[in-house]
């Protein structure tokens, strides 16, 4: 045996098996060598493959395996040692690499697996996002539709256009088969088909409002799916083959102007709703999606708002038209009124003059007639004529005054006058009437009432006389009280004269006069008419037909001219009434006051005619002596009194201008005094005038007085007026014999 380094195979060569092994090894090697080629090819193809290092390793492993198997081919036969060594090296390397690879794969395979799960996850996510995208897109689309619809609806303020547009746009957006609007009738008991999309002429088709399906829709503000067979949805005649599409109904609130409170969104308890019905196309198998329902609800709300705006606008247009009409009417009424006033004024001006001339003629001639010889009947007739014509003249004057007052052409004649004298004058004027009716008239002037004032004396007196005259006229019994005082500012603002705003000014004062009577009174509802021209209280008219009803109206005008206010209060019929007026008067300048101060201090109530007249009074009776003295003092005389004849003899002197003696005392012969005086004062101009005061009314006394040379006889009791007139007559004529 040669010692060759050949290695003998382990087992004897079995030819067939060997052959198979040989072929298999070959193919294995081939496959092993091709695998990395494929790998490289595909990896190059793909863009991403993170595991290059693994690939290299795996490639190495495969190549070495292939190499091993290839080399194995040589070991089937006798082979040299070199081959054996190469074989061994290859195997060793293969082993190392394959172990390394195996180890590496442990790390790599979970990673590869997780890639797969991640891929799955991402796919799911992508699907979800897609879905959401789809949703958003649909919403976006819905929003766009709504905006567009709203824009369409709001672009008009006409009711019909709004509703029609709604239906049209909804139909278009949602691809509806039919869309209808049912409005409540005026009675509110039925719904009437008002608008439809496709059918051009909706017949006046009504359904009662109390159907359960309608109630169901009205009770919720969502769009509600309803059955296609219910009356509101059956708008078209159903042919048998139609599978009707789904129907949805929604309520549309009808808001009125009155529903909008300031801070309050209208409660939807208004209860007036219209019904909008939407039908999907039949046979389309379409369903109502949620977003479509939402769209419908939103549109319904928008329609409600748009309708209310339209209603508001209609309302305001109507109001404006109404106002314009009223304006025109008022304007023409005003022009008519002005024309009427002008015409009346012209008429009055002309007629007045024309009426007065004949009136004056009648009055003048009747007066003249009165002076002539007339039979009693004739006299009566003439007197009646005179009275009536005087009345008529007064009426004409009143009317003229009033029209002049209204024209504003009447002006007050301002001057300084004695305020107290005005009151006294009025009192004197009504005294006769009051005495006939046995009425007590009391005058009360406040101490702080100025004696002199600046104003229109004549008109003030006229007003006062009218008011007091009314009081006397309408009082059958009782008393009348006239009060005059300066009104203070708090009493000026009277609750009964709310429109009177007096302003206290320098140099002026407000005179307030109240005339209260206890007469027939006036019922409260007649009071506003009192100052209206020609409006007469029924009761007054019956009782006293001599009034023309103008008096108080004229007073009111005068008082207003004097920047004052006049009103009447009465508690009712039979309870008397009080007439009150306030007028503004001026306070005379200081120069007047200083003038007054030079005049010796005068008594307030009287005017003295006889300042400093020296008088002697002889009267035994103490009381009547002091009364006579007071009387003469009041008249400003310088009075000396004596209580007996002797004293009289002693005291009488030429300084005394008048001697009053009481001759009704029996037993005392006052006549002696007269004789004595005559003797004492021989010269006529030195002798005092002698006047007898007597209570007896017989002619004997008078004759006696005349016999002894008395200059006058006066009957007691003597009133102030009488004394005054007596003295003035006496001093003027130096003789006085009063007719007894």
């Amino acid at each position, binding site marked *: 045996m040669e010692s060759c380094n050949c290695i003998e195979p382990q087992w004897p060569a079995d030819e067939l098996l060997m052959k198979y092994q040989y072929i298999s090894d070959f193919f294995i090697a081939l496959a092993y060598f091709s695998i990395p080629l494929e790998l490289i090819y595909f990896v190059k193809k793909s863009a991403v493959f993170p595991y290059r290092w693994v690939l290299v390793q795996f490639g190495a492993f495969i190549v070495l395996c292939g190499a091993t198997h290839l080399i194995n081919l040589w070991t089937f036969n006798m082979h040299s040692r070199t081959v054996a060594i190469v074989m061994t090296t290859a195997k060793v390397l293969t082993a190392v690499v394959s172990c390394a690879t195996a180890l590496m794969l442990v790390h790599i395979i979970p990673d590869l697996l997780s890639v797969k799960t991640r891929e799955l996850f991402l796919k799911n996510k992508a699907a979800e996002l897609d879905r959401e995208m789809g949703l958003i897109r649909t919403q976006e689309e819905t929003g766009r539709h709504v905006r567009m619809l709203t824009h369409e609806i709001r672009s008009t303020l006409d009711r019909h256009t709004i509703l029609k547009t709604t239906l049209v746009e909804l139909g278009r957006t949602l691809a509806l088969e039919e869309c209808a609007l049912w409005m409540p009738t005026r009675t509110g008991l039925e719904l009437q088909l008002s608008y439809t999309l496709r059918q051009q002429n909706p017949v006046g088709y009504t359904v009662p409002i109390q159907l359960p399906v309608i109630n169901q829709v009205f009770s919720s503000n969502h769009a509600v799916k309803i059955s296609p067979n219910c009356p509101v949805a059956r708008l078209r005649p159903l042919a048998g083959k139609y599978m009707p599409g789904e129907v949805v109904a929604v309520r549309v609130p009808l808001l009125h102007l009155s529903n909008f409170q300031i801070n309050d969104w209208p409660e939807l308890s208004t209860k007036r709703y219209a019904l909008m019905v939407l039908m999907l196309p039949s046979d389309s198998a379409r369903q109502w999606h949620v977003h479509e329902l939402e769209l419908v609800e939103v549109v319904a709300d928008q329609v409600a708002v748009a309708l209310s705006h339209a209603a508001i606008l209609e309302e305001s247009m109507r109001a404006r038209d109404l106002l314009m009409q009223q304006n025109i009417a008022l304007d023409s009424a005003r022009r008519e009124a002005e024309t009427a006033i002008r015409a009346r004024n012209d008429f009055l001006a002309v007629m007045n003059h024309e009426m007065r001339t004949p009136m004056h003629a009648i009055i003048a001639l009747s007066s003249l007639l009165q002076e002539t010889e007339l039979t009693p009947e004739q006299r009566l007739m003439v007197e009646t004529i005179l009275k009536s014509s005087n009345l008529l003249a007064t009426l004409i004057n009143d009317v003229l005054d009033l029209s002049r007052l209204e024209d504003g052409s009447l002006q007050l004649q301002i001057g300084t006058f004695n305020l107290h004298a005005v009151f006294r004058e009025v009192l004197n004027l009504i005294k006769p009437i009051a005495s006939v009716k046995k009425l007590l008239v009391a005058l009360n002037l406040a*101490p702080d009432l100025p004696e002199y004032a600046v104003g229109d004396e004549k008109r003030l007196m006229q007003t006062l006389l009218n008011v007091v005259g009314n009081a006397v006229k309408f009082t059958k019994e009782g008393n009348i009280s006239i009060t005059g005082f300066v009104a203070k500012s708090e009493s000026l603002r009277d609750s009964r004269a709310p429109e009177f705003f007096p302003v206290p000014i320098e140099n002026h004062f407000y005179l307030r006069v109240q005339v209260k009577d206890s007469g027939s009174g006036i019922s409260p509802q007649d009071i506003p008419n009192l100052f209206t021209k020609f409006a007469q209280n029924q009761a007054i008219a019956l009782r006293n037909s001599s009034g023309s009803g103008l008096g108080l109206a004229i007073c009111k005008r005068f008082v207003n001219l004097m920047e004052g206010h006049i009103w009447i209060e009465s508690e009712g019929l039979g309870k008397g009434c009080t007439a009150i007026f306030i007028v503004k008067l001026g306070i005379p300048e200081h120069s007047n006051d200083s003038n007054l101060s030079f005049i010796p201090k005068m008594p307030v109530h009287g005017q003295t005619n006889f300042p400093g007249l020296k008088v002697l009074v002889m009267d035994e009776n103490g009381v*009547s002596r002091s009364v006579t003295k007071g009387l003469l003092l009041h008249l400003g005389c310088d009075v000396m009194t004596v209580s007996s004849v002797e004293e009289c003899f002693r005291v009488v002197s030429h300084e005394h201008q008048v001697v009053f003696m009481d001759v009704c005392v029996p037993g005392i012969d006052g006549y002696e005094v007269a004789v004595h005086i005559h003797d004492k004062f021989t010269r006529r101009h030195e002798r005092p005038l002698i006047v007898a005061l007597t209570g007896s009314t017989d002619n004997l006394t008078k004759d006696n007085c005349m016999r002894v040379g008395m200059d006058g006889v006066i009957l007691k009791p003597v009133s*102030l007026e009488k004394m005054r007139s007596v003295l003035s007559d006496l001093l003027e004529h130096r003789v006085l014999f009063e007719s007894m």
Partner: protein
Amino acid sequence: MEVGQMQRRLLEYTKSLFMEGVLDNQFLQLQQLQDESNPDFVAEVVSLFFADSERLLNDLTRALDQPTIDFKMVDSHVHQLKGSSSSIGAERIKNACVAFRNFCEEQNIEGCMSCLQQVKQEYCLVKNKLETLFRMEQQIVAAGGSIPMMELSF
């Protein structure tokens, strides 16, 4: 009570006196004579009248008590009283005096006595009434009001 009410009461009271005939226009004349220079004129005259009348009434009573009545004196007293009462306006007293004087002329003692009684009664009445009137006036003045001036002609 406020001033206006008091004034009205005074008016009513005065009116009642006139209606009853207790006072007549002469009294109002006296009131008119009262003024700033003569502020208490009425009060003075009235008190003078009271004093005078009381004196006269006493004299009359005494005179009629005498066993023999001096009608002349009685007449003169009554005349005085009549004069005073008419000066002051006490109408009823004056009327009573007139009747009294008639009885005096007739020298009718019973008549005179009864008249005296009547005159006394009337005097008391007038005195009370006037005192009440003055009291009311004082109240008004104390409350700051003024006495209303009255006009009356019967």
